[in-house]
């Protein structure tokens, strides 16, 4: 019996996995299902090598990367029919060796335990991986108080970025009186470059649902909402299917597993507002109101959804829960540092050689993630830093990349753990532009309530826009610093108070880049269009005319086989010439 699985999360699908799956199903037609099974699975983790196909013959597993339709047919012919693996395309064998094994070596998979392993649409496969054993176990005789105690003992902290003790949060909600309580799963993952929650929902929706059920039991809630952004259609669909199956089997509804515990779940799609990732704004949104943060206190644990006690955690937090219940809090707490226990999933994006999903034990260093797991920077460029925590987070320079992944350690540097987005930047990334990008994002996504956030972030953005355009002045730096500091103090919700972080950290660690833009009208990363000149080196230019032909504004001229020149007054700095030149004759200054 041979099992073929295709990574069919959004990462795989966008790389063309649907066609691969169809191809494989096509060629497998006619062969008895007892011999070959072709199925989909979630994100396998190595998004940088999608589409990924895993072939398992019961004894060994082979992970094929960068699969095309042609390759798929060949793999089927050779590996399935002739029982001979196509070794040149195999990147990992038996989860333990192969050219890409380094990517997995330091990872510990708790949250992602089933991602890329099981078919997310199959309840049976989840059950086969100890699924719903945790909820069964507690329903069979663990009290809600004991569940809360176990969560506290595990040391699990909110993986949405807040880092508040999950067990304590559950405890507060369980202590709130009232016949009606709610559990909410925050699946409104909105940070640019973050896709941890999406991958979990697409790859292992049942683990999140089970986590929510356990939470419902622990705090005394009988109803839950999963607030998932509508931009994740696949996650929404898989959640809805999973809920429907559970309802059909009586595993959601009244008297689950014959106990007194009843629990129902609804999926509520978000309408695209980033601020709805803030828990009180999210609650407003479910209530049908404008997604605007509410004033805390009262906290949701006392007065949340529809005014009832509510516990809200994010996707990753819930996905940890069944594992903790089954394996015990001590085993979970064995991973990590003194104050940050367990593992953390990171979505690696940007300039890393291997961008994808990694789950690492807390306490590992940024350097280990970037250089060891992710293979350093693409194209041998120089590692400059990481932006952690999305628009609310900060930039950590390469010089501090030995810092351990730990809530408190990261915060000390001016960044935040965040939900797990890690954008790796190299020497070609302008840090002023990076700050501008994130500020433009928060400005657009501010709910508009607080003056400081609504107008203040725009004023900061305007200054950054001036600087990257080469029009900044020396006075802009103190003004920016002052605004950033004050906006953080004067705003109300998490979005506003953290919005200046990318600016504050880049000012702290990369002030020289700001000054270079202002004083020397130079972008050290050669990235800001207004400050970059494209120059053709007459020594190396062969006069092949390729750049002249590709230039959209006809800014390049020159005779055939003669060195070409760029007319700066026509150049729009698109960089096309730089990319197409086969002789490295064009450089940025």
């Amino acid at each position, binding site marked *: 019996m041979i099992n073929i699985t295709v990574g069919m999360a959004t990462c795989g699908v966008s790389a063309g996995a649907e066609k691969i799956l169809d191809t494989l199903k096509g060629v497998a037609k006619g062969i008895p299902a007892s011999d070959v099974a072709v199925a989909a699975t979630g994100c396998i983790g190595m998004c940088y090598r999608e589409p990924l196909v895993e072939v398992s013959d019961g004894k060994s597993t082979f992970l094929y990367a960068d699969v095309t339709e042609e390759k798929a047919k060949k793999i089927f012919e050779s590996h399935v029919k002739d029982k001979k693996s196509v070794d040149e395309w195999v990147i990992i064998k038996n989860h333990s060796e192969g050219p890409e094994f380094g990517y997995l070596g330091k990872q510990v998979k708790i949250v992602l335990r089933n991602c890329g392993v099981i078919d997310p649409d199959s309840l049976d496969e989840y059950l086969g991986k100890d699924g719903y054993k945790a909820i069964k176990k507690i329903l069979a005789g663990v009290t809600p108080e004991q569940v809360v105690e176990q969560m506290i003992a595990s040391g699990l902290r909110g993986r949405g970025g807040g880092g508040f003790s999950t067990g304590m949060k559950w405890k507060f909600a369980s202590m709130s009186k009232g016949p009606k309580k709610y559990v909410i799963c925050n699946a409104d993952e909105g940070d640019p470059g973050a896709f941890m929650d999406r991958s979990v929902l697409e790859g292992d929706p049942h683990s999140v649902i089970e986590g929510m059920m356990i939470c419902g039991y622990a705090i005394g809630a009988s109803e839950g909402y999963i607030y998932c952004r509508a931009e994740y259609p696949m996650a929404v669909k898989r959640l809805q299917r999973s809920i429907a199956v559970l309802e059909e089997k009586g595993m959601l509804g009244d008297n689950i597993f014959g106990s007194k515990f009843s629990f129902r779940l609804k999926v509520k799609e978000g309408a695209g*507002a980033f*601020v709805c990732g803030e828990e009180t704004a999210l609650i407003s949104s479910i209530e049908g109101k*404008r997604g*605007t943060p509410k*004033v805390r*206190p009262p906290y949701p644990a006392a007065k949340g959804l529809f005014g009832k006690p509510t516990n809200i955690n994010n996707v990753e937090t819930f996905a940890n829960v069944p594992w903790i219940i089954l394996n015990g809090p001590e085993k979970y707490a064995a991973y990590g540092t003194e104050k940050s226990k367990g593992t953390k999933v990171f979505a690696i994006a940007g300039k890393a050689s291997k961008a994808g999903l990694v789950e690492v034990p807390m306490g590992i260093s940024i350097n280990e993630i970037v250089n060891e797991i992710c293979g350093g920077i693409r194209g041998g460029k120089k590692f400059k830093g990481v932006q952690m925590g999305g628009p609310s987070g900060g930039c950590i320079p390469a010089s501090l990349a030995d810092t351990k992944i730990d809530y408190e350690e990261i915060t000390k540097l001016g960044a935040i753990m965040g939900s797990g987005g890690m954008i790796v930047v190299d020497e070609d990334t302008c840090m002023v532009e990076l700050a501008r990008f994130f500020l433009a994002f928060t*400005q*657009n*996504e*501010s*709910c*508009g*309530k*607080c*003056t*400081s956030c*609504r*107008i*203040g*972030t*725009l*004023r900061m953005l*305007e200054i950054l826009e001036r600087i990257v355009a080469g029009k900044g002045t020396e006075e802009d730096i103190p003004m920016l610093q*002052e*605004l950033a500091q*004050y906006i*953080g*103090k*004067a*705003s*109300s919700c998490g979005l506003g*108070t953290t919005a200046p972080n990318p600016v504050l950290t880049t000012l702290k660690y990369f002030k020289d880049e700001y000054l270079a833009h202002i004083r020397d009208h130079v972008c050290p990363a050669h990235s800001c269009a207004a400050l970059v000149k494209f120059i053709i080196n007459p020594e190396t230019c062969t006069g092949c005319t390729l750049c002249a032909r590709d230039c959209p504004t006809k800014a390049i001229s020159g005779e055939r086989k003669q060195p070409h020149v760029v007319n700066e007054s026509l150049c729009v700095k698109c960089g096309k010439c730089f990319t197409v030149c086969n002789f490295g004759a064009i450089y940025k200054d």
Partner: protein
Amino acid sequence: MIDLTIDGRKISVREGSSILDAAKSLGIFIPTLCHHPKLSSFGGCRLCIVEIKGTRNPVSSCTAPASEGMEVTTSSPQIERLRKMVLELILSDHPYDCMLCETAGACELQELAYYYDAKHTTYAGERRKYEKRDNNPFLNRDMEKCIMCGKCVKICDEVQGVGAIDFAYRGFKSKVCPQYEEDLNCEFCGQCVSVCPSGALTGRMWARKGRQRDIREVDTVCPYCGTGCNITLHIKNNEIIRVSSSPDTWNEGLLCVKGRFGYEFVNSPDRLTKPLIREGSAFREASWDEALEYTAARLLDIKNSYGSDAIGGLSSAKCTNEENYIFQKFVRAAIGTNNVDHCARLCHAPTVTALASIFGSGAMTNSIAEIENAEVIFIIGSNTKESHPVVANRMIRAFRKGAKIIVADPRRVPLARFSEIFLQQKPGTDVALLNGIAHIIVKEKLYNSEFIKEQTQGFEEWMKSVDSFNPEYTSSITGVPKEKIISAARTYGSSRKAGIFYAMGITQHTTGYDNVCAVANLALLTGNIGRPSCGINPLRGQNNVQGASDAACLPDVYPGYQSVGSPDVREKFEKKWGTPLSAEKGLTATEMMPAAIQGRLKALYIMGENPVLSGPNTGNTIKALESLDFLIVQDIFLTETAKLAHVVLPGSCFAEKDGTFTNTDRTVQLVRKAVEMPGDARDDLQIISAVSARLGYKLEYEGPEEIFREFREVWPNISGISYKRLNKKRLSWPCTSSNHPGTPFLYKQGFPKGKASFTPTAFAPPAEETDAEYPYILTTGRNLYQYHTGTMTRKSGAIESHAGRAYIELNTADAERLNIIQGETIKVSSRRGSINIEARIVDTISSGVVFVPMHYCEAIANILTLDALDSRSKIPEFKACAVMIDKYNSSPPDLI
């Protein structure tokens, strides 16, 4: 209580108080722009931030609850710097045009900018620019000046219950706007304008009329409905240029569209400025001497030829207590008849008669302010949201606090949106509905046995009278599903803090008296009377209809409801007024018209009423008025009635005189003169005195205060009220001594006449039922914008431009059946006449029922209504008659 320290000073505050509240009670100033004490806290402007020991970032004091042991610093270099930054950020996105701004000088933003030396240039950058202008007729919405404080959004939703505006978009592009950024189309109450801290929201009609310089402000009382909202008139050069209401008035600064924007009539060029005397079919201007001489001579002539009872007087619920007192005294003492009445006959006559006979007094038992603490509010036959909008504000507040609202009405009136139970009854089925509710309360033993035993009589006998009103039977009469009747009965019957509110839907029926009795029975049954936040609450329509009744512009009583039939009482008044008085009960307003047609009534003196539009069966009213030998009309405009007069005397409006109004909850309030009368128009007191003197009876007073003193001498219920006291505080009668605090709710000590009686009532259908020829029931009433016969509102430009067209509401299904489209002109006819009117197709009215507002002279609703009267209170049945509907073909007969 919670103890905390603010700026080093200790204070105890109630749990749930904000830090801002706590600081305020210490007299510490914290700047705010988005805070409003009556609205939910927002925390958006960030000006009120304070430091709390032990917390990392400052917090907004308006949203942060005070907690035990907290140490707060309200002002520090950091806090002041942050506040200045916030202001400068706001100013950086604000048009710098204070020179042109309507609000300059009264602008909260401007004031704080000045205080903080905040400059608009510090953070100069992009500014919001909006091309689109809102073209509504009432409000200017200059959203470039909006500082996003959200107070308008919240007051519109939380207080007004409309939600016409909300925040849209995100980030810097956020703005407050109506749905889809359409032009505002709401109730135009202007509460949003009243709370706007900048110049973003202003009255359209305020523009370039004057700002702060050379403005006089006069506090007075709104001239429209009986709610009695306190208003402030802003006067420049003898012209009212703005109306506002202070948040510390009893109505908390809330007004409706009429009160806030309906003031332009005062300065209308159509005001009467000279006496007019009829010559043939036209009028000519006359001097006051000539007009008064002529009036007096004709009245004397008629009195001498036909006797005093051939003369009648109709007084005005728009006029002050003093004017009404003098008017009835003039009719009784100078003319010598009790033929005096006013428009209460057309509105709450059944209330006055029925409640007086049951309880000994006929008025709202509880005050408006108490509504917000009620558990259950049962509204029947009152379109409160449109007819008494500020009373509705209190009901909505009660709703927000958890009160359950029951609405019974043939139309789905706007307040039904807040109702737990809506009973859409057929017109004229109130007795059945109320008895049906009583039936369930009795059957399920929800009644208040103790109260019934101690304070009522006739319960056992009455109980039999509701026996037949089982839910099935009640449902068959009223058209209301029986489950809803049962549920309403349980909701009202189970509460001991339940108030009933009613208006013309109860009274304007041939069964009006019985309807009121049926209402009273429910309150007696549950004991919902004599305590706060419950009671029987007739909502009175006119600003001073309560006062005109108190002052006895009624044919059967002297001031203070003292019967003209009682020899002792008569003797008292004869002595007081120094002249013999008639012992005969006079004619009611509705009896005067047939008397005129029959030739028994020869002359009529009408002060500030317009019966041609307001009376039933217009054709008959006109015939009656034309039958008179002499008709005097004293008014501020040449109304449809004035056009029929022999002499027209130009009077004064509310803003031009001193006096008092008594509102619907028995509260006496001072009305203050703000502007001079136009042309030769005169104070109404002067006019009546002058006519009286010429008839040989002197009515000489120094001014209204002296008249009020005489009034309180003859009526003990107001003996404790004086102008001096009213200057400081409004007072609700009974107020029987100079230190009596007034009486917000009646019957705390039981009923003055002893036990109150249950009154058995039987169902009777309306006088005119539908048939094959006239298959639709017409019901009439008011809309939000226009007021009564439109004398005032139709002279107010903004209101007229928004609601200037007559219309008939009919149900979608009926319209389909009749092949009528939205906006089409149709012909509506009854046995008495017909009108052509624009169709407004709605789903808020039941099939088979149509509604025409009473305001429009172009399509007079009362051409259709009939003059059948309730036998006891003599009120006509305005709320139900039979009509037919045709496609429009020809004009109806021109009646005027």
